[in-house]
């Protein structure tokens, strides 16, 4: 499936649901857990608030802000009519008064409204009064990745692994978490990552993975890193744990347990299986070792998640996700488990569902990393 196939599928769904036009909106604040229907319809990652307007016969208008970003939008989305604007709401009002008077076009759907800040959502909702929610329609069609998105995910995975290698090379006592995170971000940007959801923190006993702070790394620290570069708007993630200095035996044993749980999850992920089963397979390994109480909030709320920035389907690897896996679904499997003996441990890989099962996109899977042995 390519973008055009996806758009054709969306148009077919629009006709089935009697939508003449779907308006997808996004505020330009791209967040790993927020899907972006504008990117789903256009492949474009905007700087500011943007909208993609798709008619049921397949014609697409992309409204981007600021106006001077229109040239870039034309390059990335040549199939669309691109409008540059500085005020998205004003541009939409013009669109509906000039190009598509509301009383002539029939049913309108809107996607992305609930993710907007209220100051933007309210005027858009008013301008599109009577529009029906079309989020499910858009994101159902984007539950699997296009060939382009899969290729970008593979490249992002390559960059993530190189970023991890860099972490092992440079992490050392005395360096702040912030400095380490910035160095990795800069390194991966040079490799092509235009954005990076890089959660990185360290401590002798972590309670969670968190954004970096000015805390200085120390010998014996356990570094947690969710390395999540985006390549051309497609995120991929790897979750890694690194010890500064020699790892204690217990930590090595517990990490092996978490890796085993992850591998059970990967083995369970195949077409026709519900996502909840993947979560259950991971939990089973940990529950068998007496960690059942740590398999639920506040210690863990999910064992993985979809990868945007466009669609975040198939959603979380969680017990309440009944989504049935299909080929070309892309998501993270990460046990990321808190254990009382060691603290929080990260291990996780991006997987692509194929007819044969889950293909792991990384070349080298999680193992407990060691850094800074010789750098005191």
């Amino acid at each position, binding site marked *: 499936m390519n973008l055009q196939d996806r758009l054709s599928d969306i148009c077919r769904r629009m006709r089935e649901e009697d939508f003449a036009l779907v308006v997808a909106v996004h*505020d*330009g*604040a*791209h*967040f*790993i857990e927020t899907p972006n229907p504008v990117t789903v319809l256009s492949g474009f*990652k905007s*700087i*500011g608030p943007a909208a993609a307007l798709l008619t049921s016969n397949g014609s697409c208008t992309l409204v981007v802000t*600021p*106006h*001077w*970003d229109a*040239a*870039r939008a034309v390059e*990335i989305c040549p199939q669309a009519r691109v409008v540059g604007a500085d005020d998205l709401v004003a541009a939409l009002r013009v669109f509906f008064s000039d190009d598509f008077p509301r009383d002539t076009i029939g049913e309108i759907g809107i996607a992305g409204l*609930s*993710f*907007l*800040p*209220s*100051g*933007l*959502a*309210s005027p858009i909702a008013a301008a599109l009064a009577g529009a029906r929610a079309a989020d499910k329609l858009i994101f159902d069609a984007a539950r699997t990745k296009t060939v382009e998105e899969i290729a970008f995910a593979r490249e992002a995975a390559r960059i993530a692994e190189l970023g991890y290698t860099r972490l092992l090379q440079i992490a050392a006592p005395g360096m*702040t978490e*912030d*400095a380490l*995170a*910035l*160095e990795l971000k*800069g390194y991966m*940007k*040079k*490799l*092509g990552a*235009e*954005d*990076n*959801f*890089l*959660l990185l*923190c360290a401590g002798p006993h972590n*309670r*969670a*993975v*968190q*954004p*970096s*702070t*000015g*805390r200085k790394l120390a010998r014996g620290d356990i570094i947690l890193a969710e390395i999540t570069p985006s*390549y*051309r708007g497609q995120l991929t993630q790897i979750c890694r744990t690194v010890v500064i200095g020699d790892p204690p035996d217990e930590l090595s044993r517990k990490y092996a347990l978490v890796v085993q749980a992850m591998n059970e999850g990967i083995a369970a992920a195949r077409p026709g299986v519900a996502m909840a089963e993947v979560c259950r397979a991971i939990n089973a390994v940990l529950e068998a070792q007496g960690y059942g109480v740590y398999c639920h909030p*506040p*210690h863990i*709320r999910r064992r993985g998640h979809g990868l945007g*920035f466009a669609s975040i389907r198939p959603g979380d690897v969680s017990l309440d996700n009944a989504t049935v896996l299909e080929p070309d679904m892309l998501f993270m499997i990460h046990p990321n488990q*808190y254990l009382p003996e060691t603290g*929080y441990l990260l291990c996780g890989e991006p997987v692509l569902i194929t007819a044969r099962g889950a293909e792991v996109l990384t070349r080298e899977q999680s193992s407990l990393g060691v850094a800074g042995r010789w750098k005191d």
Partner: protein
Amino acid sequence: MLTAHPTLLIGPSDWDAERMPRAEFALRIEALWAHAPEAEQAIIFGNSRHHAELAYFTNLVPKLGPALALLSRTGLRRMFVGDAVNMLGAARPLTWIEDVASMKDATAAIAAGGGRALLIGADYMPLALRRSIMEALGREASVADATAQVWSQMRRKSRYEIDAIDAAVKTTGTARKAMREALMSGGGVTDVVLAGERAADAAGAQDVRTLFSQDGGRTLRPFDVPINQQVDPLLAYMAIRRFNYWAECFPLFATQSESTRLYEKAWEGMGLALSAIKAGVATHEIGQLVAAAIEPYLPHPVIGHAFAQRMGLALDEPFCADIGASFEEGEVYSLRVGAMNEAGASMICSRMFLVEADGLVVFDEGLPE
């Protein structure tokens, strides 16, 4: 300027009491109450993209999830963070407020506060959160949106704020030097831009945003993929944040030192504007002066909407571009002069300055002329 916003803010953001003492925040909160004598509590929202007001009162710049501060006239100061409960530890170093709790507890605390409330940054809230806060407050009539008032309060900069901005401007100088060296050594567009970003990071930048032009300065674009192509001359935009405060510049790099008429006219306009600005001068007069100075060239479309922008805790809020009727003492601006000829050749230059009673002080990037 609007720039591509990162999905997670990465960079040093911990509260530094020497850079921004607790007393400075106390003065700001006092001024808030003074402007709203009837208010009992203030609810201040921010997220990783929009947080100038939250940072102004609490120093907290949310790196991941949103945050909400609850201040009461009686002295209660609480911070509610939208990240998971076991992630609150990462928010604590970012603020002087000691009581940091989960966002889930915010509405109960707001409801318990009672009385007339000020809502600040409400337009950035998701609809669902805004609704639940309004429900917690009870009658909508007891709420006033004080966001514009806070921005008015934020205009005049304190000594600490000016020091932070000065540090940010100096870091643009460091970045600019690294970019020039990268260009002179034959670097492609990405090499040059990333050299600036890395130099700024190494100099302690909290955040760096860049745009660059591949078409002679007509348009700017964010980093999409690495570009090995050399562009000479190369116009860029760079915004650098230190200690929560932003500085910006539009560096132009060229391997040849040959000046163009466009370049001369833009700088001529800059010089005239800088010599005319002082406290009390009408902003539209400076706009007209700049437009006349660059004739016969056209204003550059990228900055056509804002020849000047107020600088401080935000880069792209509508309040930054609303420069008001006149320049006032203690305000910090970035003045941009951009010109384009009919063939599309373009030029933008900028300077940041502090308005004083009898003139202005241009922030020094620390670079040789």
